[in-house]
């Protein structure tokens, strides 16, 4: 699954500040994400894998993944995400989990559930898997199957039961967009029925396939507000039994998110072919050559490579970020979003209302409002697949 992975939680009572945040010194890559494969049996319209993923090189071998784990752990990486594509497509997943756990990683599997049979779950548990995040496209089979373009809803319900049976905390991730955001109540009821302990209602982030489908997926402001209200009421009712996170789509904000807590500060992602990235989406950024773990050590990539150092600190910033008092909080927002919307990744993320290009975001939102008022189907959704991936990225 290629849903957004949250970066480490901010310090709470009983905790201390994270190192590396807001400081000049580069801290360790505390968060390691291995995108083990771009292969996936689903075809989600909101997938943020690159749209040309069919052209990405040969996947890393088991031994190469194990070396990445060892090197990253030695640097201090501790949270591990195993994602994709669908990571269960790899038959060495159990080996990778076992090695990671032995090294002291906290291992998170991020899966659509396709391929998670009881024997495999048993093997993953034996290997020491700490956590599973299961994604749902929607609460109704019809909607779910439409949005993922396969018949997977029943399978996922079965997988959810398995996850409970093996006593994992049950974390559901649902990617929200215009076509399902009105179903939030049903989604939460379903989550409650399945005994979910955490539910992430994450609004689509517009990269990759989601970017191509943005005009079809961006909800209206009223839809977002309704969904938030429903969520708040639900939260009230279930209390601590089920923790619900609602991530507002940043298009509706006036300030950008501190994307990845700043590129190259805590988060390291390795693509299926071994290319190291400071964010899964960063491969699109022009002018940077991201090094591969096939050619360099994780240490030299993290600390020494020009690509990872490029967006550290503030030297790359342009106005208005460069002289903005808030730059230490949001780091100017998302470089990929700045690039996709304005053509220059060093620009202020146009989600920020101080950006001279903020109108690009408000215009997209305005179009979404029109859509909501009068749905049209002139632009078809593009489901993720290899064929569609061959023509050029939007």
């Amino acid at each position, binding site marked *: 699954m290629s849903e957004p992975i949250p970066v*480490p*939680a901010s310090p709470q*009572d009983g*905790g201390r500040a994270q190192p590396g945040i807001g400081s000049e010194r580069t801290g*360790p890559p505390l968060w390691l994400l291995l995108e083990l494969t771009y292969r996936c049996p689903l075809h989600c319209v909101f997938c943020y894998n690159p749209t040309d993923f069919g052209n990405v090189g040969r996947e890393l071998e088991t031994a190469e993944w194990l070396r990445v784990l060892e090197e990253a752990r030695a640097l*201090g990486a*501790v949270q591990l995400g195993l994602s994709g594509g669908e990571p269960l497509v790899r038959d060495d997943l159990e080996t990778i989990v076992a090695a990671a756990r032995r090294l002291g990683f906290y291992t998170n599997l991020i899966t659509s559930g396709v391929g998670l049979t009881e024997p495999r779950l048993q093997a993953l548990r034996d290997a020491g898997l700490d956590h599973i995040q299961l994604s749902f496209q929607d609460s109704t089979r019809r909607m779910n199957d439409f949005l993922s373009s396969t018949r997977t809803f029943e399978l996922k319900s079965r997988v959810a039961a398995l996850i409970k049976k093996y*006593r994992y*905390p049950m974390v559901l991730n649902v990617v929200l967009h215009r076509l399902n955001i009105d179903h939030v109540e049903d989604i939460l009821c379903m989550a409650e029925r399945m005994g979910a302990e955490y539910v992430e209602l994450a609004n689509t982030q517009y990269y990759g396939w989601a970017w191509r489908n943005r005009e079809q997926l961006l909800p209206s402001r009223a839809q977002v507000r309704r969904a938030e209200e429903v969520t708040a009421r639900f939260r009230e009712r279930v209390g601590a039994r089920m923790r619900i996170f609602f991530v507002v789509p940043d298009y509706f904000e006036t300030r950008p998110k501190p994307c990845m807590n700043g590129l190259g500060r805590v988060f390291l992602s390795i693509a299926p072919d071994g290319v190291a990235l400071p964010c899964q989406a960063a491969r699109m950024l022009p002018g940077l050559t991201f090094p591969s773990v096939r050619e360099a050590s994780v240490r030299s990539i993290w600390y020494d490579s020009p690509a990872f150092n490029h967006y550290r600190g503030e030297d790359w910033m342009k106005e208005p970020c460069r002289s903005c008092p808030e730059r230490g909080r949001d780091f100017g927002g998302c470089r990929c979003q700045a690039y996709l919307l304005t053509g220059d990744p060093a620009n202020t993320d146009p989600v920020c209302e101080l950006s001279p290009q903020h109108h690009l975001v408000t215009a997209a939102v305005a179009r979404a409002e029109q859509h909501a008022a009068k749905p049209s189907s002139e632009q078809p959704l593009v489901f993720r697949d290899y064929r569609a991936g061959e023509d050029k990225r939007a």
Partner: protein
Amino acid sequence: MSSGDRVKESIDAAKRPAMGAGFRLQWEPAQQTHVLLYPEGMVQLNQSAAAILTRCDGARTVADIVADLERTYEMTGLMPDVCTFIAVAVQRTWLELIP
């Protein structure tokens, strides 16, 4: 897990605190600190939090833990602070109380 969590129950000193499901406590050399790991997240623990949590092994009672802490740090009267901490930790599901 916001700081707005309020503690409602008081803690029975005869109960045995253990790490909650999905939580793992470990020492991180790179951060020179104990951390509490949980699904897709991490909390760095200050010294007193670490001193309490490392003793929550599901075998020792709250009273045992307090006695051990008082011995180790040559202090007295730690019971109220430890109970408050444990109550918050239970509420955040970091800990479970075993009868």
